[in-house]
């Protein structure tokens, strides 16, 4: 569904991505793990057109989308839950969710999805009129995911959805990820929490300072020695 070939990203003099290859097949969960500053967020930003790719190609269902305006990506069904939630703090919970559906026209379907999001996150439903800025961190993350679902994604990308959340909420979020995957959603997941990510993922990539150093099915990466040492904190 998404095919990345030899993608490079530069920020001024910094070479953040040094030609990576990555594939997200339909209906799968793919995860990208790596240390701080490895280039995970840069990968997602360049897919969405928020960071300029300096080389390489990004194909979505065969169509080249590299360096196109972000609004085109959203209308094609590429949706990103950005790092750090980025909910609109001055808008209410419901307004945030409606903004997720900004490009959609069909009122009935929007209402249907809104109810679905409230089913997934009953806490949001209780807080419809609350300003997003006054939500707790976990609630903001739920809102960020809910808002992305309102865009009716074909490929949902999430940048560290568990960042800064209590273990119980992390479990909830991963439960939701599995649940929306069961509904047929393709997911590209970025995580510091490598263990949780590899558990749900069909396939994983390990990114180190701008290059992919390891890849394989989630279960295999879990038992890989290097991964265990570097990301799962286990010593054998």
């Amino acid at each position, binding site marked *: 569904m998404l095919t990345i070939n030899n993608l490079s990203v530069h920020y001024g003099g910094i070479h953040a991505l040094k030609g990576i290859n990555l594939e997200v097949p339909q209906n799968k969960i793919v995860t990208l793990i790596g240390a701080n500053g490895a280039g995970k967020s840069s990968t997602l930003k360049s897919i969405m057109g928020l960071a300029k790719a300096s080389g390489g190609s990004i194909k979505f269902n065969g169509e080249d989308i590299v360096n196109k305006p*972000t609004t085109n990506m*959203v209308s094609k069904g590429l949706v990103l839950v950005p790092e750090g939630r980025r909910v*609109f*703090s*001055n808008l209410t919970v419901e307004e945030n969710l409606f903004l997720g559906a900004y490009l959609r026209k069909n009122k009935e379907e929007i209402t249907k999805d809104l109810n679905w999001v409230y089913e997934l996150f009953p806490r949001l439903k209780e807080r419809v009129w609350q300003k997003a800025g006054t939500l707790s961190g976990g609630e903001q993350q739920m809102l960020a995911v809910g808002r992305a679902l309102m*865009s009716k994604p074909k490929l949902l990308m999430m940048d560290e959805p568990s960042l800064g959340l209590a273990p119980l909420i992390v479990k909830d979020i991963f439960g939701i990820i599995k649940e929306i995957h069961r509904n047929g959603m393709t997911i590209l997941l970025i995580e510091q929490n490598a263990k949780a990510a590899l558990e749900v993922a069909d396939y994983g990539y390990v990114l180190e300072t701008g290059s992919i150093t390891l890849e394989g099915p989630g279960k295999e990466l879990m038992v890989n020695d290097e991964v265990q040492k570097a990301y799962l904190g286990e010593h054998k």
Partner: protein
Amino acid sequence: MSFQTFLQHLVNGISLGSLYALLAIGYTMVYGILRLINFAHGDIFMLATYIAFYSITTFLLPWWAAFLIAIILTALLGILLERAAYRPLRNSPRISIMISAIGASFLIENLAIVFFGGRPKAFPIAPIFSKIVRIGDVSISIVTIIIPIITVIALVILNFIVNKTKTGMAMRAVSKDYDAAKLMGININHIISFTFGTGSALAAIGGIMWALKYPQLIPLMGVMPGLKFFIAAVIGGIGNIKGAVLGGFILGLGEIAIVASSPALSGYRDAFAFILLIIILLVKPTGLLGQNSAEKV
């Protein structure tokens, strides 16, 4: 002071305050979305009056058609201003775009002198606007009454757009976070254009009513009022639409109060705005309704 004179001054103050409010909104909307003080806003206000003037005198249009055309063309000019002077600098340091704003202001003023001439022009006032109404012992020109009414109507419409429509929601989102707004599929450029168009249309409405009240047009007529509109926006808390309205009325009523309290003080009328600005900046730098801008500056 008799009750009648008091009422007369009050009506005048409200009327002037309305104009300040309408114009302050343009500053505040642009600041809210671009974090830019649009120094050319006063000049946009001036252009609106000249467009109305030529529509009536040269093209012999009826006043209502002339006003409508002035509002539409001014909105387009506002959009053009952003495209030409601000958009190319969107990712440049703040100071560059500010200097571009000052440059745009000088450019418009000097082009106006070239094309419209430096000599003052008398704004043609349709008879319907020059009527005087008497309420009890108070006599008020009809324009003084129309101004607050039109202002209220414009504010109600603006409030509806900003708070109840999808575009308004997008405006509020863009003013908070460009990238997150893009991720919703919002086209930032469209929203910014829309903001400039709306702010400039309000400037045109204010400008036309200003010309009906003070019917003398000169190319530099936007300079001093422009500063005051800006001060009104700062007093209320720049970036906040309700604040701009509040600031506008405080400034308008305050000025009239000074003039009314003693004719000797009327020379200090313009100074009042600046003194008020200094006091506000000392006491509450974010303005009366401004939030502490910890969020995003």
